């Protein structure tokens, strides 16, 4: 197995983490990992259940106790409050989608744009309906009545309404039918081409993630065991056997 090499080119990295540790109470989950997301790039974070993928995303957003450096566009964000990190342009589509079940689809979307001037955000609603026409049909409905796929679309739209520099996606394929997953990734590709937003994608579905991303990291029990261009990683024998299943 190849050793992980930290990427050096400082200028082109939007997000960089060095020596990142994270713990829930006494339970340590991340043991000093280094990773980066390139400006405008998509990075995939792969690994088995419990490897620390979700924790890595939470660490970036200040939702878990951490040690080590995290910087966004050269600015240290570790130790900052979640709300402040979000306000710097980090949007997180969380595990379980984070839907405001009791509120309407409209209110969920308005909350996505909460930190931005209302008039500016109103124009963006139109873009979201182009990407996700179903949200327009369900605009006045209680969000808890949406199907899983629709809630995933709502979560992505809500995150995009922040106009993020960095989009963190936690298993957007989770629990969805293959056709819906394809639809969602097709839309994510379009979003990327249109808006040039950088993404950090956590996925159990490694084949899907490696096809979508340019760079990839493989996590194993809180340590990065491999990193590199997604195309190379998908050719790796060990990865193929462990995560791709052929």
């Amino acid at each position, binding site marked *: 197995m190849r050793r992980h090499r930290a990427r050096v080119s400082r200028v082109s990295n939007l997000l960089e983490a060095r020596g990142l540790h994270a713990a829930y109470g006494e339970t340590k989950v991340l043991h000093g990992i280094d990773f980066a997301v390139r400006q405008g790039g998509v990075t995939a974070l792969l690994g088995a259940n419990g490897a620390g993928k979700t924790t890595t995303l939470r660490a970036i957003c200040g939702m878990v106790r951490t040690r080590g450096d995290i910087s966004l566009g050269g600015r240290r964000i570790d130790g900052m409050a979640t709300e402040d990190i979000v*306000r710097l342009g980090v949007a997180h589509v969380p595990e379980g989608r984070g*839907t405001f079940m009791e509120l309407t689809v409209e209110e969920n979307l308005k909350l996505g744009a909460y930190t931005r001037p209302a008039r500016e955000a109103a124009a963006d609603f139109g873009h979201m309906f182009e990407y996700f026409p179903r949200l327009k049909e369900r605009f006045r409905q209680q969000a808890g009545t949406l199907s899983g796929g629709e809630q995933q679309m709502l979560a992505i739209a809500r995150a995009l309404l922040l106009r993020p520099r960095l989009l963190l996606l936690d298993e957007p394929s989770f629990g969805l039918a293959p056709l819906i997953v394809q639809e969602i990734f097709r839309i994510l590709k379009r979003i990327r081409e249109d808006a040039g937003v950088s993404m950090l994608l956590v996925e159990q579905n490694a084949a899907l993630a490696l096809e979508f991303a340019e760079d990839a990291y493989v996590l194993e029990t809180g340590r990065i065991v491999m990193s590199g261009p997604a195309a190379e990683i998908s050719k790796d024998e060990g990865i193929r056997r462990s995560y791709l299943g052929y």
Partner: protein
Amino acid sequence: MLQGVIHQVMSGIATGGIYASVALALVMIYQATHHVNFAQGEMATFSTYIALTFINLGFPYWVAFAIAVVISFGIGLAIERTLMRPLANAPVLASVGVFVGLLLIINSLSGWFFDYTIKQFPSPFPDHPMLGGYLSGHELGSTAVTLIVLVLVYLFFRHTRLGLAMRAAAFNPTSARLVGVRVGWMLALGWGLAAAIGAVAGCMVAPVVFLDPNMMSGILLYAFAGALLGGIDNPLGAVLGGFAVGVIENLGGAYLVGTELKLTLALVIIVAVLTVRPTGLMGRKVYSRV
């Protein structure tokens, strides 16, 4: 006989408005914290003393009223920031202990600052009967004030960004943080608003029941019964429940148990709701699909 019933129902609605306001204050804090603020009534009493202080200093009634509402808002905010915030993740009993402690402390402070004698509190409304003699001027006026407050609160939560953010913070704090809502401040604002609503209720009820440090203790029980009856997680339900309890209390007091035993009606309602339908008549049903 019929006239008597109509009269009892109408003045039940008038007192019900007070219960509805306090019930709404309880629900606001309950939604955000899942705790019932037992000190809500004593906070309202304290606010009423603040209003009386400014009235005695010579301020016009509505100016004193407004000052009391604003100061109460600040006190509510400060209580959340200093006392409640450290307890955010504490076990239920710790929070209950603090609420009970707060009740006793504020009650004693009211007595200490303003003494325990029963005081008259002025009404800003005309003294003569209205609506064909069914309601006193004060009953009609206080009902109008209550309704205005309820409508304003509704509009605030439905149609403003801040109101939406407060609801989001109450329903789903984690997701609220992820869209940039400052959840801690939303909770504090909720406390401030609840205290302000309580101040209005206190000023409206004081001319009827007279002001003393224990003025709100019975009212809090009725309000709690109303909130439970309507659904303690549903603001509209709690408000309607408050009005309903006011009417039930008045009719029951006049025709059923007599005024001495009226308060037991509140307890009967509380026990009945908790055994028969714990979510209340309008308890929120949340649809969720996975």
